[in-house]
């Protein structure tokens, strides 16, 4: 669920600028570090009165928001703004550079050892909910994320600045001509995104008690995965994606390979359905009426259903017919994909009894990221895509 807060920031910046703010993870870490530093400096402990403690925590929250926002603004000004209008990879490169710089600065300022926050009762307090003990903090994180999600959705949908954000995202030049101050809008987006990351940093720190300087890299990537999973640029999507990713990670590690193999088999069935039924049906729609003979339809179906043989034959022999040759190469690709899935399932079945070790946990997020980007880059809830041709 923590991913949700960071993912929201990713999604905000991406939604407006169409650019992956790689340094977002580091901004999150800064939030955590600054709040821990504040708490340590104030010397909080359980012996303090509730009011003082609340005050201290509020101060820490302030720090956790203020520092990331300042850093976010500086970064935007120095490293991103000059690159506006360049190709997609230039800002990304710059963002990677920024990410490295921030990480090293954290080490220089706070040292390479993880920063620990003072142990507090609130942080570890737990309540019993439906017979399961749940940490209050966990509940708080869920509530805060949900509230922020609703607030952000409202902000983007129904306010003036939200409208400006959407316009900037659609077409910066046109928005500018219509009198929208795109620079201010972007700065505002960065403020909101960085503040979210900062709050995330504070909550992670309180939940786990400590934070390491390079935490941002992994958290950032996972949050990015969550954002993509839900459909980047989509605010409820980010939260949904974070939930799905969190579940996959938690339950993924204890799953045995046999189960995953069955999942792959399900994928294989879906793949075969696509190859045998859906795609050929779709193809048949393209035949012009005067060519729609039963014989021709059967040939197209054959290319898909008996792919290896017919498709190769068609590819080698009949290059003249566009529809057939396109279908054939398409069919070959689908077959290769299905064979790949079948092989994966087979390998997993052979090692069926083995369980996924916790060591593989970081891999899960990366695999999810790769799979989602390969097969459905628009995510579960869809990305608002406006590519101009």
């Amino acid at each position, binding site marked *: 669920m923590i991913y949700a807060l960071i993912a929201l920031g990713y999604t905000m910046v991406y939604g407006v600028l169409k650019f992956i703010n790689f340094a977002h993870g580091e901004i999150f870490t800064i939030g955590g570090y600054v709040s821990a530093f504040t708490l340590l400096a104030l010397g909080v402990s359980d012996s303090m009165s509730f009011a003082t403690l609340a005050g201290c925590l509020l101060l820490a929250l302030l720090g956790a928001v203020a520092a990331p926002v300042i850093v976010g603004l500086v970064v935007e000004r120095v490293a991103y703004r000059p690159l506006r209008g360049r190709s997609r990879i230039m800002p990304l*490169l710059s963002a990677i550079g920024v990410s490295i710089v921030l990480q090293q600065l954290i080490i220089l300022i706070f040292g390479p050892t993880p920063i620990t926050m003072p142990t507090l009762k609130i942080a570890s307090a737990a309540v019993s909910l439906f017979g399961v003990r749940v940490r209050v903090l966990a509940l708080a994180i869920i509530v805060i994320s949900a509230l922020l999600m609703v607030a952000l959705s409202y902000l983007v949908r129904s306010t003036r600045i939200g409208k400006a954000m959407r316009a900037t995202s659609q077409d910066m030049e046109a928005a500018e001509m219509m009198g929208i101050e795109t620079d201010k809008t972007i700065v505002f987006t960065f403020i909101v995104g960085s503040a979210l990351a900062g709050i995330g940093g504070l909550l992670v720190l309180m939940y786990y008690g400590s934070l390491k300087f390079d935490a941002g890299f992994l958290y950032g990537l996972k949050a990015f995965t969550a954002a993509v999973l839900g459909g980047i640029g989509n605010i409820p999507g980010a939260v949904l994606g974070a939930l799905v990713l969190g579940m996959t990670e938690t339950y993924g590690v204890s799953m045995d390979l046999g189960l995953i193999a069955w999942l792959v088999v399900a994928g294989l069935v879906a793949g075969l359905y696509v190859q045998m039924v859906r795609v050929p049906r779709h193809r048949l729609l393209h035949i012009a009426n005067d060519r729609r003979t039963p014989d021709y339809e059967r040939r197209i179906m054959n290319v898909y259903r008996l792919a290896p043989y017919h498709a190769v034959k068609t590819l080698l022999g009949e290059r003249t017919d566009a529809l057939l040759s396109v279908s054939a190469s398409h069919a070959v690709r689908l077959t290769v994909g299905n064979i790949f899935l079948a092989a994966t399932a087979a390998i997993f079945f052979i090692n069926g009894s083995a369980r996924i070790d916790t060591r593989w946990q970081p891999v899960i997020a990366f695999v999810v990221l790769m799979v989602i980007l390969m097969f459905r880059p628009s995510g579960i809830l869809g990305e608002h895509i406006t590519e101009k041709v």
Partner: protein
Amino acid sequence: MAAFTQTVRSAFTKVPRWVYLTAAWVLAALFPVLNALDLVQTAWIRVGVLSLLFALLALGLNIIMGETGLLNLGYIAFFAFGAYTTALLSSPKFDLHWPFAALIVVSALVAMLGGFLIGLPTLRLRGDYLAIVTLAFGEIVRLTIVNVPTLTNGPNGITGIDFLKPLGPGVTARLQSAGLPQAVSNLLTIDKPTEYYYLVLVCVALGALLLSNLKNSRVGRAWNALREDELAAVSSGITASRMKLLSVLLSSAIAGFAGSLYAYYSNVISPESFIFMQSVIVVCMVVLGGMGSIPGVILGAIVLQALPQVIRESAGAARSEFEVYRMLVFGVIIVAMVVLRPEGLLPDKLWRGQAHEADPRELERTRQTLFDLEEGEQDLEA
């Protein structure tokens, strides 16, 4: 003063490019002589070998990043493929001792296979997504290496990799037993830094030559066209998927080749050498030198690999603290280069760094279109 700089600059540009290039190669070739004359320490030759190895790697990355315009953030994974292939097939781990010639080819092929598997499904992705997917791929490869100790010894790495014998162990042994003079038979085993230096230098020179041939050819132009404008490129008859795959295959083969040399040279390899930061460093080399410029990326690699050593020697800083500053400088270099001088230190001739520039007439047209649209809307309302 201004006139003076002008004169100096024009004097520099008057000298043809090839003079500089030849001079650079000659200097590089003479470098070990300084060592033989006891003017520099052997440690510097080692720095030279690593710099050149990274130059080879940067040349490979430049193909996909500079020429084809696809950002690969997991490039070090292909280097790892090459290094581990060589290490596994020529070490006590499985007691296999394949000859050098076979291994260097097999390593490149394994890396190519990796490139093929990752490239096939991902190359149609947009640039920034592709970058992230390759990053994830690189991390998956590294974590797999760490997590499968039966094959790779996990985090401990593989030790005791064979010495590099260009003619293969069998032939070398037979020749040596045939009673060759000591000096000659020593040359049959490449184990001294100087010998490695020349081996890698030749590889870099050869790579630079072949790749610059490629640059001004049909394939190179197709890559450049895809980088500049994919839509226009496919409309000019370029099969985007095939050309991109070709670019990935070639660049991963070079990385595999370099990885193989690295395994021989360092004798020990472990997953630490293949972390994400290493990928970023190679990216940094390409950006610093100039994307798409062959002399540029070689220079970038040498500067970034050798310079930190120079600084460390002179500053005498402690290792951990030094690492922090080194990475800090890398980060600053990337940002500064991208923002201030995107064409790099030694730019490719034509790089102007601006994909889109506003043309007043074009702006006028946009405005006109907007106006038309608005008018259309009003019509609809009426």
